[in-house]
């Protein structure tokens, strides 16, 4: 019966997202337009380059990578930091804490409905369009399975980071500043704006030791690789699992410590 209480939240989330008919349509159309812009921009960039392959990526590779990174962003970004920040500022957080479910899971499952709607409304159509446009550059094989597994971990890591950053709002009350900083750091260092393959070597080495690359770069690299090397796959997903656990523990721990401090101080 435990699962049922989570699924109820998912269902409520789906209903709530669907209430906003126009925003759903705007989301779909806007996303497609955005893809077109990215397409033209990178085609122009590649046309101006000396060779067809830059840093081991063809135009189609880069296109798929960036477009799907945007699509992944579209469905993973649930503005949890905003939600937490606002709940903390308004004091609504107290009510949320009284609910018979851990706040961290409650927030996650409340958003799971949005995940599903966004996945269907933005990610799937984008995926199909890009698969058709790039004429079979996406290999339909085991790599899809690895991609899906990898995305699940990516969602978890992304949420942990969001929750961790959201917890900071308990101390600072600066939602906007914290959020914009998080967004920029995550988008840049995860390879969502520019594929990590294009980064200079030193920067790439630094980034590879950070959790962010597990969010966008890991699943997308797995997807683009049509002939996966088992060792490579194992290493990528293994790294993700480690980050997933580390970030989960970190965010849970930080939340617990912060909450104790807040209740002691009577904030």
């Amino acid at each position, binding site marked *: 019966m435990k699962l049922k209480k989570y699924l109820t939240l998912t*269902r409520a989330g*789906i*209903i709530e997202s*669907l*209430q906003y*008919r126009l925003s*759903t349509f705007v989301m779909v159309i806007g996303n497609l337009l955005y893809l077109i812009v990215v397409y033209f921009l990178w085609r122009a960039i590649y046309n101006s380059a000396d060779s067809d392959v830059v840093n081991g990526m063809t135009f189609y590779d880069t296109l798929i990578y960036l477009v799907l990174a945007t699509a992944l962003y579209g469905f993973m970004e649930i503005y949890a930091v905003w939600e937490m920040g606002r709940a903390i500022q308004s004091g609504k957080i107290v009510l949320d804490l009284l609910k018979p479910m851990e706040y961290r899971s409650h927030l996650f499952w409340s958003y799971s409905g949005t995940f599903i709607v966004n996945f269907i409304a933005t990610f799937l159509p984008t995926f199909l369009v890009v698969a058709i446009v790039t004429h079979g550059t996406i290999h339909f094989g085991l790599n899809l399975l690895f991609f899906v597994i990898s995305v699940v971990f990516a969602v978890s890591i992304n949420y942990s980071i969001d929750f961790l950053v959201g917890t900071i709002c308990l101390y600072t009350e600066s939602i906007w500043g914290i959020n914009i900083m998080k967004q920029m750091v995550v988008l840049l260092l995860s390879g969502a704006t520019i594929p990590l393959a294009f980064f200079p070597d030193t920067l790439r080495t630094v980034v590879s030791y950070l959790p962010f690359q597990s969010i966008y770069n890991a699943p997308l690299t797995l997807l683009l690789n049509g002939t996966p090397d088992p060792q490579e796959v194992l290493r990528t997903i293994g790294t993700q699992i480690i980050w997933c656990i580390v970030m989960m523990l970190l965010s849970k721990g930080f939340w617990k410590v912060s909450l104790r401090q807040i209740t002691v101080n009577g904030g």
Partner: protein
Amino acid sequence: MSPIIEIKNITKEFKVLNRREGLKGSLKDLFSRDYKTVRAVDNISMSIEQGEIVGYLGPNGAGKSTTIKMMTGVLEPTSGEILVSGCVPYQNRTKNAQEIGVVFGQRSQLWWSLPLIESFRILKDIYQIPDADYDSILTLYKSLVDIEPLLHKPVRQMSLGQRTLSDILAAFLHNPKIVFLDEPTIGLDVSMKSKIRTLIQALNREKHTTVILTTHDMGDVDALCERIVIIDKGRMLYDNDIEHLKRFFGSYRTLRLRIGGDLKAHAASLQTALPECTVSADEEWISVLIDESKANVPDVLAQIQAAHTIRDLQLQEIATEDVIRKIYEEGVQ
């Protein structure tokens, strides 16, 4: 003299979305929508003279706020005419705004993190209040309330009562002809309520300002209003002086008592002892509805006290909702 507010047969309709229920329903809503028209205000007419204090009553969703929004020029009526101080509010919103002041009980219009005096200074500029008028109204305020400690306190640090008080002062600052007060005493304690009522009364008397007051608190009405307008479901139910209405609510009060023993039995025996009252009982309380034109409260109380030891008691005014129900049941004129 022509009336300051003249309303003739105004009606306001809204289009509301009929939402379907459940997951299936929201999917359906995504593709086809079903609207219905709701008539929030239905053919209301009234005219209000300069200097009147009018109590504008009705249950939640009766159309009070909609009427006020039309009088303030925020909404355009679907049909009918409104004239506020000689001009049509929604056609001359800024001109109209110069003549009115508005207070919404729970929503402060002051600058949240500024001391009150700073807000006043901004308002002085916005409303182009001449220095002399500004000084004289501040002097008046100082004579009416203890404003000094409030002036230098940021609004966000004020208690709800202080904030309401400040909002009312801000609304009267530019010496408007009409002030709309929406639930000014909601959520306040008894002493703050009476403080605010005294202030409104004094300002009305000093400045001869017309006050339109919406409230759920019959205490406000009793203390302030000469004239009452009641609407329900968008329709006008009553528009007359308060004496007329007293028959329906002023003369009734409920005495609630807590006594030991079998309440049902006690209630039955009290009912026979007090034939002019209506006695009922729940798990904890015995309620005695007293018609004050037939019996007075102290007498009834004395009579009960003779027979029982009273542990606790409350005296309740009849609520707006009850007044409206009684008007429905018994008619007015």
